[in-house]
């Protein structure tokens, strides 16, 4: 067909080029510069990277990022898998109400990140009338320092994140579970395999591809977003819940440190790119 695909691709090339390609290239340039948000670069060098490595808080931030991301990804996948398998089982047995359950979980996903942070702030509130603490008090249990204790604050941030994000994993696992050939289960039943054995020897191995792909996608999403943390804890107490993306944001837009912030932003892009390459490799393997 005599068509000029380039012409048809021009609009998205312009849009993505202006908003993604050029800015990312510019972040690379800025990371080698001494620019601040208020004045352009005057000299180039490795000072941004040096500042990045010297910063005392970087270790804390990276540790927070790893803890938050790993805990979230594990939590999101376990919760997503549980709901997906439950709904799939209900579907197979023709149980009513399963669509409602799916809708409820998806509704949490639609809540804007900032609203999510605000909602969980009212739940975790340590005032006498905070939702969880006043419930604990009603049944005679001690109050918990959900947001003022550094370690509990991280737990709280992860809980809020898992509540909101479970739907994504659920949808991915639900689709993958439905794609498993039912004959595998029939054969296992004939062989007398018990439900747990069927889960371990059929469901999990069959879902392996979906679990791997989902791990990569959920990790990238978790690394890249911080609006719910910002609204829930603001990164505190102290720096207890300040993850990498929030740290970059603070550095660039509050401290005006464009060089150091750009160097860190590149670290974020590098991690995402590495994970993306894994994702492509997984997809490629799935096709063959």
């Amino acid at each position, binding site marked *: 067909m005599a068509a000029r695909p380039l012409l048809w691709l021009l609009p998205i090339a312009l849009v993505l080029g202006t908003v*993604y390609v050029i800015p990312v290239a510019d972040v690379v340039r800025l990371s080698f510069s001494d620019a601040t948000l208020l004045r352009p670069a005057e000299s180039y060098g490795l000072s941004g990277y040096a500042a990045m490595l010297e910063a005392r808080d970087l270790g804390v931030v990276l540790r927070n990022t790893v803890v938050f991301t790993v805990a979230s990804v594990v939590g999101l996948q376990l919760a997503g898998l549980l709901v997906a398998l439950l709904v799939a089982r209900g579907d197979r047995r023709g149980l009513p109400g399963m669509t409602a359950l799916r809708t409820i979980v998806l509704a949490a996903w639609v809540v804007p990140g900032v609203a999510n942070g605000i909602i*969980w702030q*009212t*739940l975790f509130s340590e005032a006498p009338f905070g939702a969880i603490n006043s419930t604990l008090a009603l049944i005679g249990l001690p109050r918990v320092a959900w947001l003022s204790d550094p370690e509990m604050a991280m737990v709280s941030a992860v809980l809020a994140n898992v509540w909101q994000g479970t739907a994504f994993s659920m949808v991915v696992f639900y689709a993958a579970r439905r794609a498993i050939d039912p004959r595998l289960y029939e054969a296992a039943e004939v062989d007398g395999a018990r439900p747990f054995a069927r889960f371990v020897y059929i469901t999990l191995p069959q879902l392996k591809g979906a679990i791997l792909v989902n791990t990569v996608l959920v990790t990238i999403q978790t690394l890249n977003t911080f609006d719910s943390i*910002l609204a829930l804890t603001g990164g505190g107490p102290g720096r207890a819940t300040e993850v990498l993306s929030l740290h970059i944001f603070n550095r660039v*837009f509050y401290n005006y440190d464009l060089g150091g912030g750009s160097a860190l932003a590149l670290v974020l892009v590098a991690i995402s790119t590495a994970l993306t390459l894994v994702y492509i490799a997984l997809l490629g393997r799935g096709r063959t």
Partner: protein
Amino acid sequence: MSPRAADRATYLVALLIAALFLVPLSWLLSLSVRTPQEVYLGAARYLPEDPTLENFRLVLTDRSFGLHLWNSLKICALGGAGAVAAAIPAAYAFSRFSFRGRTGLMVAVLLVQMVSPLVVLIPLYRYMDALGMLDTHLGVIGVYVALGVPLSVWVLKSSFDRVPRSLEEAAEIDGCGRAETLVRITLPLAGPGVAAAFILNTMMGWSQFLVPFILLTDTGKVPISVAIFNFAGSTSASTTQLLAAACLVAILPALALFVAVQRLIVRAVSGGAVRG
């Protein structure tokens, strides 16, 4: 375990999960209909004894709150429509033409999403500053267009794929060019896909916080997501019920759209994530 007993166990776990997922939203609803006095009574008044709609009245009659809702609607709808408009020709090319690098380009479009908006906002802030576009809706809408393009391309491509080529060929025999065929034949037939892409973009835009937070400083111009964040930062315990009502009003449009198009979303997510 008999199948019947297993069904009961399924329901038990399902109820537990449903409760866990409903508690945060129902707590928000509970707070939003309380009087300040009942807010101080905590979980004991999960079901308020003296429910009131006063908080919603105050929020909805507040002029600046209405302005924020309008800002959100404007930015999201225009950004969503812009993304669909930019994506249509590309999605059509990916669906109908065969050319070198087609698959690679399609994957590249998808991969753009892996870059955090935060990263590109660092230089974009400077560009917009230089162009005098900081604090303008146009600048924010431009970024929303780019954020919506990847998903739009994929949703539109798959809906173009479902339009039979034979219908287009008939139009071509009648002398229609490619572009004319697209506008006259393919687009109307792919209407549901176009609507789905637009709605998905609008919903994503509604949740977007970082882009307007960074690019807009004039409080009269910010969308609802930024407005409730600012409100949350300025409130005290005595206005918790107002914050809850505002928060709920901010969530409801997204929730309503979502309930209307749930099936489309499930298809878009599972189609994009677990291909192959």
